[in-house]
């Protein structure tokens, strides 16, 4: 049960993602952007950060990294893939997910504990949550505004593909307060907030948020439970 975590030049949260996989009870396997081989991993996390300095557009250059060739094929074939923050931007650039992430509408970097509703719970990454469950995980981005045309947004809503939505106020101007989406099959999930930063006692969101700070861990236990079941 190995979960690959890809490191690109400029990745920031690859270690935290790998740590979250281990805290959930799984084996994290380091994948390298320049190696066009997934080494037989059972799932992949594309971590947060600033791949290739976010030059051109966030994720636009990383999307053509050698590892993305086999990854895109495997994702289309059903391999569970979770893109967090820069990983979400990358999945949109790679057209594995619809829409795009643009600069926050208020033009400032946002870093805070963010309440979310988990709306789609039949994906391999979210099956541990109850539909509509409120969780709090860190959010930190400068270009986290989720945008797509109206037709795409209607499709996403109609097909139940909005995985997570911002609660309370919209932190970055995302259309329809969308924080995360999935592909039709549900194996590919992209999410702007950071569940991997809310998976270890004492290091997650402050207990004043009304949670135990571990609300993100179930993304990682979900994938491991699913893999064990298969």
């Amino acid at each position: 049960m190995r979960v690959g975590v890809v490191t690109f030049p400029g990745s920031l949260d690859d270690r935290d993602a790998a740590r979250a996989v281990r805290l959930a009870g799984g084996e994290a396997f380091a994948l390298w952007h320049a190696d066009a081989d997934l080494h037989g991993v059972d799932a992949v996390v594309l971590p947060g950060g600033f791949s290739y300095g976010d030059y051109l557009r966030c994720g636009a250059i990383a999307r053509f990294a050698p590892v993305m060739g086999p990854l895109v094929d495997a994702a289309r074939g059903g391999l569970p893939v979770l893109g967090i923050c820069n990983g979400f931007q990358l999945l949109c650039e790679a057209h594995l997910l619809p829409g795009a992430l643009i600069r926050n509408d208020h033009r400032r970097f946002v870093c805070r504990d963010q309440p979310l509703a988990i709306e789609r719970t039949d994906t391999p990454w979210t099956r541990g949550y109850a539909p509509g469950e409120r969780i709090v995980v860190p959010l930190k981005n400068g270009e986290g505004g989720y945008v797509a045309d109206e037709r795409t947004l209607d499709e996403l809503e109609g097909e139940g593909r909005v995985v997570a939505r911002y609660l309370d106020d919209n932190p970055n101007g995302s259309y329809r307060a969308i924080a995360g989406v999935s592909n039709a099959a549900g194996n590919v999930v992209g999410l702007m907030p950071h569940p991997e930063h809310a998976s270890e006692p004492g290091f997650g969101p402050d207990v004043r948020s009304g949670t135990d700070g571990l609300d993100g861990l179930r993304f990682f236990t979900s994938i491991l439970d699913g893999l064990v079941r298969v």
Partner: protein
Amino acid sequence: MGRVVVEFMPKPEILDPQGQAVLGALPRLGFTGFTSVRQGKRFELEVDGEVTDQVLASAREAATTLLSNPVIEDVVAVVAGEGAR
């Protein structure tokens, strides 16, 4: 040496925070009367020799695969560029 100029604009339905920031700054500097600003991008691609149809075709393909994201941007020009540098 030939040059191809490739230009993009954000799609009309996509929010343009950078354009809005510029719009907000203009009146502070006394440039009043502008009611909207949209900010695009310009790339200059250089080749050895002439800009042939083949070069332009290649630039068009690059424009939609790497240089722009068709989800949020429209390519508004892919043309043989003038020599200004």
